[in-house]
């Protein structure tokens, strides 16, 4: 795409992203692989993957985000029971229907029990596909945790090198960190812009701009985001009578694009969310010239990353953080939007509920499934909620 040549409008950028997101297959990844020797692509299950390590090893990290609402699950539901979230099944289904064929491997993480078992089931069903599993530390207080994670990353780097046939150098990794820093920093700025002027950038627009980074090479994504930031900052927009909402709970399985639009159309400005959290992950840039960049990445995970229910950092209270986030974003309310059967997000809710009630912040609890395609009921529920706040 020629993002450098003509200044693009948000609408045209979003349209471009929507098209890529909705296209089955991984055309951009395949093109990237074919453009040079010693390249591979890996599918990364949510929530966070140290993408830099793969990219520095000649492996394009591709984000897996479930099957959306166009995929029918015909095979995988005999492997995972009815009470397991959809993304676990739709990821396996994609494998069983050969949609993941262009990927040379998959990586899973210690986010929850179903995702962990999926790593095993996937490996058994596809013995030709290398499957990696990262155990992220859950002891955030011990001084050895970054060191442990650094060693874990060294192991992952070895795996990545085997996929592409190219071993990464420290310089490669530093360059990848700088590139992904640029991406994350631009996303942070887009998030800040939406927080301050949500009428200039809707979440239904911001979301695909971020999500497309799952599928295209990072250089391209960095440029696209820079264009989007420029376009959004100079965009005219009319403020509407809407409530400001912080949305939380959708950090893994993703709601359909139309559900995001429906929430906004029901009278909400979404001023913060935890969609696709892995694309932002860090609260600040990872040091770019660290002597040991693996350690820098590991340290960032422990000491400078965003809160999510799949991380259990006992130094902080996640529900207090949510209250603070609602306040710092001048939110009128919080929507807790959990994927159905998602144990980590459902477990977070009672603590959120208590803290929000104590802080006097109204909230609405909703569940979604990636495969849902009717939004009238949710929309009217949100409308009622919004009205109760506007006319109270």
């Amino acid at each position, binding site marked *: 795409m020629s993002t450098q040549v003509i200044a693009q409008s948000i609408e045209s950028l979003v349209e471009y992203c929507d098209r890529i997101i909705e296209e089955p297959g991984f055309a951009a990844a395949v093109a990237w692989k074919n453009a040079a020797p010693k390249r591979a692509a890996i599918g990364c299950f949510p929530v966070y993957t140290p993408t830099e390590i793969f990219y520095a090893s000649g492996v394009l990290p591709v984000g897996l985000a479930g099957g959306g609402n166009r995929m029918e699950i015909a095979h995988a539901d005999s492997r995972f*029971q009815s009470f397991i979230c959809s993304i676990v099944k739709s990821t396996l289904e994609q494998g069983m229907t050969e949609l993941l064929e262009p990927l040379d491997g998959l990586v899973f993480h210690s986010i929850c029990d179903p995702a962990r*078992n*999926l790593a095993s089931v996937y490996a*058994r069903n596809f013995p030709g596909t290398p499957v990696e599993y990262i155990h992220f530390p859950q*002891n955030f207080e011990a001084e*050895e945790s970054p060191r442990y994670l650094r060693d874990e990353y060294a*192991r992952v780097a070895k795996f990545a090198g085997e996929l592409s046939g190219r071993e990464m150098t420290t310089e490669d990794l530093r360059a990848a960190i700088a590139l992904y820093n640029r991406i994350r920093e631009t996303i942070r700025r887009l998030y800040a812009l939406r927080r301050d002027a949500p009428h200039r950038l809707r979440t239904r627009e911001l979301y695909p701009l971020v999500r497309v980074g799952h599928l295209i090479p990072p250089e391209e994504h960095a440029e696209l985001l820079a264009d989007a930031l420029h376009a959004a900052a100079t965009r005219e927009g009319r403020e509407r009578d809407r409530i400001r909402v912080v949305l939380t709970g959708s950090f893994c399985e993703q709601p359909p694009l139309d559900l995001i639009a429906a929430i906004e159309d029901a009278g909400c400005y979404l001023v913060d969310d935890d969609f696709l959290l892995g694309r932002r992950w860090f609260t600040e840039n990872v040091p770019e010239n660290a002597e040991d960049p693996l350690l820098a990445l590991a340290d960032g995970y422990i000491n400078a990353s965003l809160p999510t229910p799949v991380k259990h950092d006992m130094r902080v209270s996640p529900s207090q953080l949510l209250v603070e986030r609602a306040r710092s974003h001048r939110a009128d309310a919080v929507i807790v939007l959990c994927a159905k059967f998602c144990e980590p997000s459902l477990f977070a809710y009672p603590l959120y509920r208590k803290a929000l009630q104590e802080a006097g912040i109204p909230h609405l609890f909703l569940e979604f499934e990636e495969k849902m395609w009717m939004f009238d009921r949710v929309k009217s529920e949100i409308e009622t909620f919004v009205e109760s706040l506007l006319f109270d």
Partner: protein
Amino acid sequence: MTETHYQGKLHHLQKELMSEYYAALTAAANGSGVPAAYLLIGGNPVELLRAFDILPVFPEVNALQLAVRKQSLPFIQSAEFMGYSSDNCAYVKADIGMYFGGRETPFATIPEPSLLLCNYVGCNVYLDWFGHLAEFTGKPAFQLDIPFIRSASGKPSKEDIEYVLRQLHHLIGRCEELTGRKLDEDRLREAVRLSSLTGDLWSKIKHLTKRTPAPYDAYFDSVTMMAPLYCLRGTPQGLEFFETAYAELLAKAEAGIGPLEKERFRYVIEGPPPWPHLRAFRDMFSRWDAVAVASTYSTVGGLWEFGFTHDPDHPLESIARHLLEWNLTNRNFLQRYEQIERYLEEWNANALVIHSVKSCRLFSAGQGDMREYFTKRGIPTLLVESDLEDPRYFSEAQMRNRIDAFFESIAHRPTREGASV
């Protein structure tokens, strides 16, 4: 078709020792001054607490006791009232409900925790559970992070072991602060020595069901021995219990006595029991003269029958190995397939029953794949669903029909050599 009847000395001793244990919990709750640490069953490091005379409290054991006594539902409902989902693990809900209900149970008053020791061994729900207790109570918590088994060899790496050892040293520091006493290395060695003898006996007991008839049911009777294995391991009483149990079960084996009058089917069972309906569930198998000769559930706290033993000469290293490698919960799902395969072969069983529980996704997520794997290998495999804690998910008539149909069908099929149909 036989009714279950099985009562021995070990049952009485179990009752006696467990009521002593629960009396100690009640005393602690009433201010005996003994500190109590909450911890989880998965590969638990109870020996370390013994060395400090810290009372171990296992919320999972309490939750299951509530379920067995049909007391869990009101607690589950009060947790749901607080915002817990019907889809969350009901062990957690029963425990949280009980905690806020005054910590009163029919078997003990549960003391407040002096330390929340979250041994994160495989189960991600553990982290939520203890995180919530920490947030609700404000009590000190320690997160013991155990890297999951993710290597092709099924072994922890050198780095994993070092990482766990370092954390164990921090944990010792926390216990020292809590008790105001330095670690007594001899006491630790002694607790580990007692555990090692206990584990050896438990392993021998496990191997007794290789005999025909199996002298006890490796699911329904194993669970009687599991509470002492966690709550009393590392003490002389714990060892005494397992000596008694082994002697009694060995005598039965020698005399050719099993839990049923006749042993017709030998099966392996995967998944935790439906505690609120244990009796009814057991009878569904007994009426077919079917005996479980091995169960994966009985290895959540440790997998001794495949060769693990604590080492008093290397106490911390062996605690680390137990946490990392030698328990079901920290092993990956495919290692469980291997475990079942070994049971089918070495324990000479001819069927697999998978009890899929909604609460525990550590166990259940992917069991459909497991069924497919074993069915393809020619093992008659049955998958039934209910729950381990929530009584609302047990449909008795449907369950019985499925089990009847299963044994009906295998009664008419040719069996592998040596199987005892």
